[in-house]
């Protein structure tokens, strides 16, 4: 048995022992919910009709604070408790990658990828295909089955996306796979056209407009040196970065100086981006540890 296995084994045994003691003494990791009875009201009767019987009610479970344990209508939710324990153990599995690649990490990674893909597919099916496509093509059928709240008339225009979708699926067919290129071409062309217009306005024209600023800003008859310095920095930064990416002239002399200045601006931008990234990553680990300490272990 190598040293790493021994350390892992000892850590796991110590962790499991601590958890057992804590669960016995504190009961951590439990999730409490409040039981709320919902009783819908019957629709008012039409003239001359007898009042309808009240529809059947149901029970809704709202999240409750753990400090409210023992109060009336507060109970432990087994599914949510299992969820917290699963989430905590999977978090530890993912964090175990810091020690090195291992089967626990691979298991958690696979669960995460599979669950995300499956969830996205199911949500996409019910919202995109059922609600948007079938809801428009077969409104009566959808109202009678899955979408009782669906309103409006059908639209035959939606046959076009249906046909394009079927053509796209031809890629999976052993013959006629070339048919899928047509909807793909339509999709790429339409997307490029839509994006071109929006990019041209918001990321080109308006950015040029925003860059045209007075270098000397006068406020109340005096020099506003802060705004002036800001505007000069923006102008010099934009021009020098543009020179850096302009390869039609050799970067020598004035062009070389501007180009090197452009590199400095770029490096400062990347540095700020890196700083932000570090902050983001620390925020993520802080949130996970907060979950482990608070929801799972009840330490805070």
């Amino acid at each position, binding site marked *: 048995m190598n040293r790493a296995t021994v350390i892992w084994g000892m850590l796991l045994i110590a962790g499991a022992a601590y958890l057992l003691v804590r669960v016995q003494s504190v009961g951590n990791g439990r999730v409490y919910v409040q039981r709320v009875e919902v009783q819908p009201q019957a629709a008012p009767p039409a003239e001359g009709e007898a009042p309808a019987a009240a529809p059947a009610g149901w029970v809704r479970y*709202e999240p409750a604070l753990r400090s409210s344990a023992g109060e009336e209508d507060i109970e432990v939710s087994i599914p949510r408790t299992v969820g917290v324990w699963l989430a905590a153990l999977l978090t530890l599995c993912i964090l175990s990658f810091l*020690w090195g690649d291992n089967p626990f990490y691979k298991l958690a990674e696979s669960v995460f990828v599979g669950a995300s893909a499956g969830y996205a597919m199911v949500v996409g099916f019910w919202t995109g295909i059922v*609600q948007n496509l079938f809801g428009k093509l077969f409104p009566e059928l959808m109202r009678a089955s899955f979408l009782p709240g669906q309103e409006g008339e059908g639209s035959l225009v939606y046959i076009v996306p249906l046909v394009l979708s079927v053509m796209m699926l031809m890629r999976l067919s052993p013959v006629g796979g070339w048919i899928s290129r047509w909807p793909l071409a339509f999709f790429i062309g339409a997307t490029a056209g*839509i994006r071109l217009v*929006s990019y041209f306005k*918001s990321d080109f024209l308006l950015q040029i407009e925003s860059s045209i600023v007075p270098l000397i800003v006068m406020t109340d008859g005096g020099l506003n040196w802060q705004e002036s310095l800001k505007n000069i920095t923006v102008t010099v930064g934009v021009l020098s970065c543009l020179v850096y990416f302009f390869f039609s002239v050799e970067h020598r002399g004035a062009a070389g100086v501007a180009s090197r200045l452009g590199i400095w601006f770029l490096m400062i931008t990347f540095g700020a981006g890196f700083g932000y990234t570090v*902050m983001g990553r620390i925020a993520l*680990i802080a949130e996970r540890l*907060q979950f482990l300490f608070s929801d799972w272990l009840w330490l805070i």
Partner: protein
Amino acid sequence: MYEFFAHLDRRWIFLLMLLAVAVPLLQGVRFPEEPSDMVRNVYAAMDESSRGSLVLMAFDYDPASQGELQPMAAAFTRHAALRGHRMIFLTLWPQGVPMLRRNIDILKTEFPDYVYGEDYVNLGYRPGAEGVIKVVVSDLKELYASDVSGTSVSQLPLTRDLKNIQQVDLLVNISAGTPGAKEWVQYAATPYRIPMVAGTTGVGAPALYPYIPQQLVGVLGAIKAAAEYEQLLIGGYPVLAENIQAQEGLKRMGPQLVAHLLMIVLIIAGNIVYFAGRRRGVTR
């Protein structure tokens, strides 16, 4: 000494970082936040909108980035409710649906007077990325005939007469990537001049700064800006000082400071080891 640092197992660094984040969390270390002008502008956009304004809450993030973004989404939701604004929630991310629910739970528990359908509506997710924005700016009901639970939007008082999102008074977007804030700026805020504020991950913040102030009122960048926003919110609405849930960003800034100090120390130490190695003629 040089040999020790030059061949230090990186797992010691991981352990140090774990302690730098865990200890302040366990100890509840917090620091006062001084809101920046950018955060003040975003706050003012929400706070100075007239009471009862219609706000579109487009929350485009998933559980993987909720550590960074949930505090600012919750702060926006609380702020809008405290101002009495009406809210429409939607997402362009399939995994964003539980995130919407999480923020709506805040309304249910902390603002019981808020009525679904009258004060807020959850439209949920529709596939199509920026295509969805392109449609809802001209015809909301073309894509959102019903809300997240299948109720027709024509039956809900808030959305009954809403033709498109050009009618909203403020567009709030929380973005973890694409589609997100950039697409809302390109397809909604810029062409239709809808006032918009955004909150984004640290990685995404620099890409949005060029849009300020003409196309975007302001951006909350990462957890630091969320904490500053919470500080402003507590200042403006002291009732939140008692609400621990409303201080998630502030709680996470303690670990941020200690972890950043550790990072600075590690960068300096790494450079010292590197230059010491160069003087000894070590090449890597």
